[in-house]
């Protein structure tokens, strides 16, 4: 659709601008302010320049948190995206079972994040949780507060439980938009199941899958509450992801300077990756624009 040039449209955008500026720009300025100052308490600050940034860039603590974060996001994307697509392909198209599946699948998405943590904290406990109890009685040494692998696997399975449905529902929405004629044409052309997926379903899902990957990447990169409730970042620091580390630093230790520098770099990394996604997505939109 070609749009008209109209500078007055700014007035329509104004409320959003004011609101978001109030809750984004002012706090962000505070962060920038902290990131270049140091304090000995008593609200006395002095200029620290880029020292905090340098310190954070040299800090092994941040790099290892970033490394864990990257590995975590990568693993859950590799599981959730294909699994979500597979589930979407198997979902009933209409009728009672379609509604039933939709409701059950959407359920985890609307549970407060700390409750998600609580659910898995309980579910995985060896004494009172179904999962932990079953694994334990099978003779598997499973303890997510002690074992490194147990902790990681619990956090990953929890995230898969929590978020795969988002990918599946998005993919399902993409599938629903394919007219029946395409499937009929594929039958007439004697296309294999794989060809139907490859040439009809996947191209139609492409747009929503990009959204799904973007959302999942962003949210997994910011994950805080769920692993915090389950493992508290442990054992040791093994599930201390970026947000957990940041909150520890800022609210726990009140290391405002380093935390602020950390925040800014954290935000920038996410922004950069999202920008790449966004550009790719708008280019796809343009290419599809008929």
């Amino acid at each position, binding site marked *: 659709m070609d749009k*008209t040039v109209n500078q007055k*449209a700014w007035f329509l955008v104004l409320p959003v601008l004011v609101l978001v500026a109030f*809750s984004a720009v002012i706090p962000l300025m505070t*962060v920038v302010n902290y990131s270049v100052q140091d304090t000995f308490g008593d609200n006395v600050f002095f200029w620290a320049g880029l020292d905090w940034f340098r310190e954070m860039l040299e800090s092994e603590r941040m790099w290892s948190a970033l490394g864990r974060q990257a590995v975590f996001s990568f693993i859950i994307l590799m599981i959730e995206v294909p699994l979500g697509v597979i589930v979407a392909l198997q979902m009933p198209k209409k009728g009672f079972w379609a509604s039933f599946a939709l409701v059950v699948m959407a359920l985890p998405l609307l549970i407060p994040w700390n409750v998600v943590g609580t659910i898995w904290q309980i579910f995985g406990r060896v004494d009172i949780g179904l999962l932990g*109890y079953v694994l334990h009685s099978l003779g598997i040494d499973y303890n997510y507060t002690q074992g490194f692998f147990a902790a990681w696997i619990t956090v990953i399975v929890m995230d898969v439980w929590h978020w795969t449905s988002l990918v599946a529902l998005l993919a399902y929405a993409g599938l629903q938009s394919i007219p029946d004629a395409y499937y009929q044409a594929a039958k007439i052309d004697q296309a294999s199941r794989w060809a139907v997926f490859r040439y009809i379903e996947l191209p139609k899902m492409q747009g929503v899958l990009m959204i799904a990957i973007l959302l999942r990447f962003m949210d997994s990169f910011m994950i805080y509450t769920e692993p915090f409730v389950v493992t508290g970042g442990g054992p040791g620091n093994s599930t201390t992801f970026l947000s957990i580390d940041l909150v520890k630093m800022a609210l726990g230790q009140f290391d405002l300077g380093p935390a602020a520098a950390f925040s800014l770099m*954290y935000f920038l990394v996410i*922004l950069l990756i999202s920008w790449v996604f966004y550009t790719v997505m708008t280019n796809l939109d343009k290419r599809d624009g008929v």
Partner: protein
Amino acid sequence: MAQATATRKPARRRINHSTVIMGLYLLFMILPIYWLVNMSLKSNSEILSTFSLWPEDLTFRNYRVILTDASWYMGYVNSLIYVLMNTVISITVALPAAYAFSRYTFMGDKHLFFWLLSNRMAPPAVFALPFFQLYSSIGLFDTHIAVALAHCLFNVPLAVWILEGFMRGVPKEIDETAYIDGYGFWRFFLRIFMPLIASGIGVAAFFAFMFSWVELLLSRTLTTVSAKPIAATMTRTVSASGLDWGVLAAAGVLTIVPGALVIYFVRNYIAKGFALGRV
């Protein structure tokens, strides 16, 4: 083609692999929740002493504890208040902005749009401390509106984006016809345009509700007593009074209920809604 295969009757509802996969997946979805419900209906002694797949000594004590204690149930009220405030604010400001983005070109529109979206990508953890200081300094700390405004940072950009997608699907000729018919902008917008994108508004409201309801980090940081959300009440009570597993589970179940209700009512729009008007 063979005569034999050509004349066979279509097979009715046989178990195939998609039923199996869907069944397993749904089981995976339900089991942890079931376990929570199961625990919430047991007494603490039963939880700790015996391991059973269903409550052998069914009790509603845990729910009674929550529903009769103001410090518990006010948590739900607080959560609902700021969630609703946030949803209303987000949609109200996002509507005109989304209209502007979907219909007009203006200076800096693309940068503005990306900047808005970039806020949705901001980690709440980054904002926790600055928000705490900002709202303390202007005297809004521990109020519902503080949490609602804080969540706007994430929900407004998302609402603008979703609504813009739906509005793009409405042909521009409708606007033009209305103006020719002598409608003013606001009358056209409220009377004609909004009903056309009603489903989009529903979807945006759903997403705003969803995020505001599930978020904890900011809502916990910005409240202490009078606006404390239920999710935060849960964590604090657990650390204070030892581990009352039954009550904890019951509180958890009660936080799932509003979401489940919302989903149930919008179930027929979920598929379309998740496409955000962009398929």
